[in-house]
């Protein structure tokens, strides 16, 4: 299988602190990879390097086999890498449709550039389709996203990223602020969405969720890569759970 | 690394540096600068706005501010002149009470009704302005008796009474702010309001009290003005809100809250007072004062921003 995204020998230091130490990372086509590790393991730093917020001190990034330079978030977006951070970066008092099309609004005709006349109907229609496609229930797409539940807001953020980014989708702790039922719905959504992108990376603290959704997990501890664990063919087992925990914490359980 | 530290030190003390430079400069440029009379002039300049600045500092530390201080000042002065025939006690209490009441309403709007400072104090500013115009139109509001005149221009050990009031107020407030739990709470509210709540700080009470305090200080300032100015008019205090906010910010208290102190504000008030005085001595047009004040304000926040960003 092809590697959609590959990072080799990534090292990143902040002052005297080594956040990442010679870390490799790979994402295969159609894969959902869970990036796990305890606090301070380096997960956040790694995805910030992928999304262009940080530049690695050492190491290379390959997208679909080709070496790429990602110097800022706009580079990442241009390459088709979309990141959804915990705060979702939504416009609270705008509608779902306005959020999805923020910055890339559809205008009537090609004239005018930024002064172009908004094609509200088209945007609403497409937004509705996108949302329905993913089976998200949003009563009124014209409603301010402020009024939506945590899970629905996540869906709007995901819909936005999927629409514009088609290579890699990165999600930072998507289920962290959600309850049990909403987390379930969100994981379902992610499963449905994998067909629209080449690969998904999910950071999560919640091992249950990772086991539930990911094909594979990559474990970091204290800035180093501990290993990669296949999840897909393992089924549900305490073994898997224990193995992951011991890799994360570095302690052996008997 | 080292340049950053040096820059930081300079940035923290930029106002004192400017003050010292100005004093040196003006001593050369004007033979009158160092005289007793002139220093008294400077002190006069800074007393009224200085007193209000105490309250403004406390407000800004909590991420609020008060646009109505100028009108409140006018109100206090007007009330004071109106009440003077009833004797000093009534006059003083009346003026301070009126101003504090305005402050109380500001405080309630901001903390309990959840208005933001801008709108609440803007509305109050309009209201007080109208009120003062109304009062002044009707009655003859002018003329102060000798009694008050003596206070305004009298001195104790060669220091004008108003200045003593100011110095006492700012010293006491400064100590309260920096050394007591009360003061800590104020910084907490401005720096991290959510954490402040968790610590059981009654944010609403603090904010309301701060506005009441500012109002009361406007009352005191109004009384002082009343002892020196013969007539109350709606034009009183027209630019006061800008001047006081400028002084506090130039002094180094951050508009974003949580950082600053009364000593800094004193510097801000002092530097603006010296500039005003210097320009009068050198016969420079007073309009230039406005320009320089505005320029300093912007310069200070820009420099502060650059130094802060550089450190990162």
């Amino acid at each position: 299988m092809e590697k959609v995204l590959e990072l080799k020998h990534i090292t990143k230091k902040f002052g005297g602190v080594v956040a990442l130490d010679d870390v490799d990372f790979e994402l295969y086509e159609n894969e959902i990879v869970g990036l796990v590790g305890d606090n301070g393991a380096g997960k956040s730093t790694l995805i910030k390097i992928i999304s262009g917020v940080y530049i690695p001190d050492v190491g290379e990034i390959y997208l679909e086999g080709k070496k790429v330079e990602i110097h800022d978030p706009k580079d990442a977006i241009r390459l088709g890498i979309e990141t959804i951070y915990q705060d979702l970066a939504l416009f609270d008092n705008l509608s779902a449709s306005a959020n999805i099309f923020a910055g890339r609004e559809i205008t009537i005709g090609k004239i005018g550039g930024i002064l172009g006349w908004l094609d509200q109907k088209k945007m609403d229609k497409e937004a509705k389709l996108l949302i329905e496609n993913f089976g998200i229930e949003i009563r009124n797409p014209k409603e301010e996203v402020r009024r939506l539940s945590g899970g629905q807001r996540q869906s709007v953020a995901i819909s936005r990223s999927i629409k514009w980014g088609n290579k890699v989708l990165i999600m930072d702790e998507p289920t962290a602020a959600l309850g049990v039922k909403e987390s379930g719905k969100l994981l379902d959504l992610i499963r449905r969405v994998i067909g629209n992108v080449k690969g998904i990376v999910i950071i999560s603290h919640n091992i249950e969720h990772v086991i539930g959704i990911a094909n594979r997990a990559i474990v970091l501890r204290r800035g180093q890569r501990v290993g990669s664990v296949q999840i897909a063919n393992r089924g549900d087992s305490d073994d898997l759970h224990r193995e992951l925990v011991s890799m994360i914490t570095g302690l052996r359980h008997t | 690394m080292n340049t950053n530290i040096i820059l930081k030190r300079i940035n923290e003390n930029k106002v004192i540096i400017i003050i010292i430079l100005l004093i040196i400069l003006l001593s050369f440029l004007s033979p009158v600068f160092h005289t007793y009379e002139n220093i008294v002039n400077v002190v006069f300049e800074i007393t009224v706005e200085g007193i209000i600045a105490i309250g403004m500092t406390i407000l800004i530390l909590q991420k609020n501010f008060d646009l109505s201080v100028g009108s409140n000042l006018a109100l206090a002065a007007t009330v004071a002149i109106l009440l003077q025939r009833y004797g000093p006690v009534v006059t003083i209490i009346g003026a301070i009470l009126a101003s504090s009441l305005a402050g109380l309403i500001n405080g309630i709007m901001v903390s309990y009704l959840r208005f933001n400072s801008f709108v609440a104090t803007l509305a109050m500013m309009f209201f007080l302005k109208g009120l003062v115009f109304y009062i002044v139109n009707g009655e003859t509001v002018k003329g102060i008796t000798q009694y008050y005149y003596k206070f305004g221009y009298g001195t104790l050990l060669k220091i004008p009474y108003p200045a003593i009031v100011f110095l006492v107020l700012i010293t006491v407030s400064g100590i309260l702010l920096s050394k007591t739990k009360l003061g800590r709470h104020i910084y907490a509210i401005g720096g991290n309001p959510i954490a402040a709540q968790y610590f059981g700080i009654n944010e609403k009470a603090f904010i309301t009290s701060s506005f009441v305090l500012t109002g009361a200080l406007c009352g005191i300032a109004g009384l002082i003005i009343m002892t020196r100015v013969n007539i109350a008019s709606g034009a009183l205090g027209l630019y006061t809100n800008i001047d006081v906010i400028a002084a506090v910010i130039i002094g180094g208290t951050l508009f974003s809250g949580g950082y600053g102190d009364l000593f800094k504000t004193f510097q801000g008030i002092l530097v603006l007072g010296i500039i005003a005085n210097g320009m009068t001595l050198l016969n420079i047009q007073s309009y230039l004062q406005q320009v320089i004040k505005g320029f300093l304000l912007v310069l200070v926040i820009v420099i502060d921003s650059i130094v802060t960003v550089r450190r990162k």
Partner: protein
Amino acid sequence: MQSGYKVKKFFSSQILLYSFILLLILLSVFVPAFFSARNILNILRQASTIGIIACAMTIVLIGGSVDLSVGSVVGLSGVLAISYLYRSLWLAILIPLLVAGLIGFLNGIITVKFKVDSVIVTLGSLAIIRGVTLLYTGGKMVDGILGSPYMLIGSGDFFGIPKPVVYFFFVALLLSLLLHKTKFGRQIFCIGSNFEASRTVGISAERLKVITFVISAVFAAFSAILISSRLNTASPLEGTGYEFDAITAVIVGGTSLFGGRGSLPKTILGVLFLASLNNAMILLNLNFSFEYMVKAFLLALFVYLDIRLKDI
């Protein structure tokens, strides 16, 4: 529960409209003189000055900033226009607009590049520009050339409607379409709602913010040209307080000071509402001081209602 929410939402968004209708009903009973054609045109004419500024201010506010310098820009622009009238008609129009544009640009750049609060920056500009204007004219008014075609810009009417009203109408129309129907306008809402998120999705957030300041200043200059062409004279103190009046109208119209939400048509309604109220008070022979107090009360009332009804 659902229908209750919908009813409240509908009511809250139209509260200004209902208040206005209520006002008109009350006026028809108590102040019938209000409804003469001459009076209505008078109201509209007086409303146009602040109206144009308020329309531009709406854009700034929705974009998440505040521009307190517009009043001073009005003063400077009027003075520049009349001064250059002696050289050429075109310069009289162009220079103020260009200078205003430059001022707006500077306001914007400083706010954006140094990440400092627009309140402080524009407060500084307010002082600087007013001071410069006063310096330039030496405090005096500047008189224009009698009979100059310049006067035709703002005085007289187009088919019975005072020219300023016509300009106001077109400005209102233009800016409404810009804000609510174009990509540009939508992105202004975005940067006001969440500046950082806007940059994440590729919006040129910084550039847009600067543009809002330019728009504000340029339209303030335009308003000044209308005023000075009608009066054929310019005062360096013209425009004092306009920024607060404009902001009041915008807030009464329902735009939030925090950015990201608002409506230009509602701002216009706010302007008309306040102007009507003013006019009614004059017709009722009420002291002009009431104007201030009523404005204050309305401001507080509308903000209160906005806050209460916002979080249902």
